[in-house]
């Protein structure tokens, strides 16, 4: 489980943030002692830090600057200050991303996922699922001599589900992922895409690839 450290002085925001991250399957920790932040961060050694700019004792940007001298733990700056100048400054200090409050929770999770993924290199061209070979770049699904073509939307949905295989993915998450890839589809289109994807896998002999969990979302088995 990925460890995410929350540095944020507003009590309600940080407890809700912790709940959001825990629900999304992260190990969320809160740093509430602001006197020795740098040492604390290094001893906790999180996989990612959500850092507010306005924190007591020390400015978030300064903390980031000090942290970057000793470590390259991914940092997402979170702030209520809206401005290109603040953002450029934070990025130049070595932030991996910059999000302004109030943020949409699904977008926040998406950005966290993207930053964490940047650290690993699992951008593979081919995926092996059951006994089916998926060629991501060519958009093709193969089993022995049978070939089925996936559309761009179907591929986005499959990869997103594949990366979270065995856990439930909410429709809203899938929708956000699609919109984040400039595919602005509606609810009906998502349902259609999923059933087509399901049929394509059935053709290749995997009967219940995507299961629907009522009121919760989908799960790739």
């Amino acid at each position, binding site marked *: 489980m990925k460890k995410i450290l929350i540095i944020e002085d*507003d009590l309600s925001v940080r407890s*809700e943030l912790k709940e959001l991250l825990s629900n999304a399957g992260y190990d969320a920790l809160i740093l509430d002692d602001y006197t020795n932040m740098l040492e604390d961060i290094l001893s906790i050694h999180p996989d990612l830090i959500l850092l507010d700019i306005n924190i007591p004792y020390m400015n978030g940007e300064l903390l980031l600057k000090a942290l970057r001298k000793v470590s390259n733990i991914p940092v997402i700056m979170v702030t*209520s200050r809206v401005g290109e100048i603040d953002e450029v400054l934070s990025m130049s200090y070595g932030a991996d991303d910059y999000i302004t409050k*109030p943020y*949409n*929770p699904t977008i926040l999770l998406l950005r966290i996922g993207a930053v964490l993924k940047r650290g690993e290199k699992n951008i593979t061209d081919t995926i092996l699922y059951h006994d089916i070979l998926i060629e991501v770049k060519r958009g093709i699904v193969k089993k022995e001599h049978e070939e089925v073509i996936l559309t761009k939307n179907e591929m986005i949905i499959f990869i997103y589900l594949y990366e979270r295989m065995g856990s439930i993915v909410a429709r809203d998450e899938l929708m956000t992922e699609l*919109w984040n890839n*400039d595919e*602005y589809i509606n609810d009906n289109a998502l349902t259609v895409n999923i059933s087509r994807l399901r049929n394509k896998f059935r053709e290749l002999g995997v009967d219940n690839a995507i299961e629907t969990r009522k009121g919760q979302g989908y799960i790739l088995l």
Partner: protein
Amino acid sequence: MKLGDYLKDKVFIIVLIILAYFIIFSFMIGFKITKEFKWCFTVIYFLLFIILFLYDYLRKYFFYKEILSKIDLLEEKYLICELISKPNFLDGEILYQILYETNKSMNENIRDYRSKIDDFKEYVELWLHEVKIPLSALILYTHNKKTSQVLVSEINKIDNYLEQILYYIRSENTEADYIIKEVDLNKVIRDVMLKNKDVLLEKNIAITSDVCNLKVLTDYKWLEFMINQIISNSMKYMKDIDDKKIEIKAYKQDKYIVLEIWDNGIGIPSSDIGRVLNKTFTGQNGRKVPGSTGMGLYIVNNLCKKLGHKIEIESIEGEYTKVKFVFDNNLFYSEVYSKA
């Protein structure tokens, strides 16, 4: 100052001088003074006064001419005192002193107001950032507890209004608060769409976007705000039909890059279209849909002016509205940029 006006102003003194002349002249007749002396006296007497008046007139003429021509050219008229040379006659000196004092007190007043406005703006910005913190907590809460969609969309509205005042203040600011960079239109549109995703899906509005991977030179955050305002308007003034659409496209045209946002909403009446960019103008559509402030497009237009872009609005009532942003396609910059 014309000579005629000057003499008219001095008419009382002139009458007195002529009167005095006749009195002296009648005395001279009484004392039996010679004819030659009388003539000599008359010439010297009048010559003296003519020279006196001419001298006085010319001094004033040049001073007032300078002052009047300079005040015509000056935009901040209260600064006239800084531009004229000190006069060398009494009324002029008094006037100069008065102008100097007025100018000083005016400047002090302006400085006071300016610093009050700046303080106020600073406070509002600070307040806005403060208020966004509980708003974030609320958004996270509604998401975690899966509360009703009504709450989410109301919170979104609050956020939208907060953004409006933030950018209103920024657009009125004299100092530059932006950074011009190369901005990927796809990315801005994606961010705006994700922000409005829930409402767009709920209202079932179909989105198509084809901006041909074009990039423009602008401030990212400002452009994001501007597009968001246009999309918000499209959502607000949508017709109640099955086939709701927003279409976004971008293309090159001569030296410009045009970003076009089209919707098949209720449109704008032709009598209103010329005024939609005016401050607090709500028009006929403002009466149809609640929550019109008439500020959104005004702020967008102001930001456009500051960044050097143009906004054009085209509409047929009941059919469509098309908003175009026109950006300079700065070839020089992109050439330097690609070589670097």
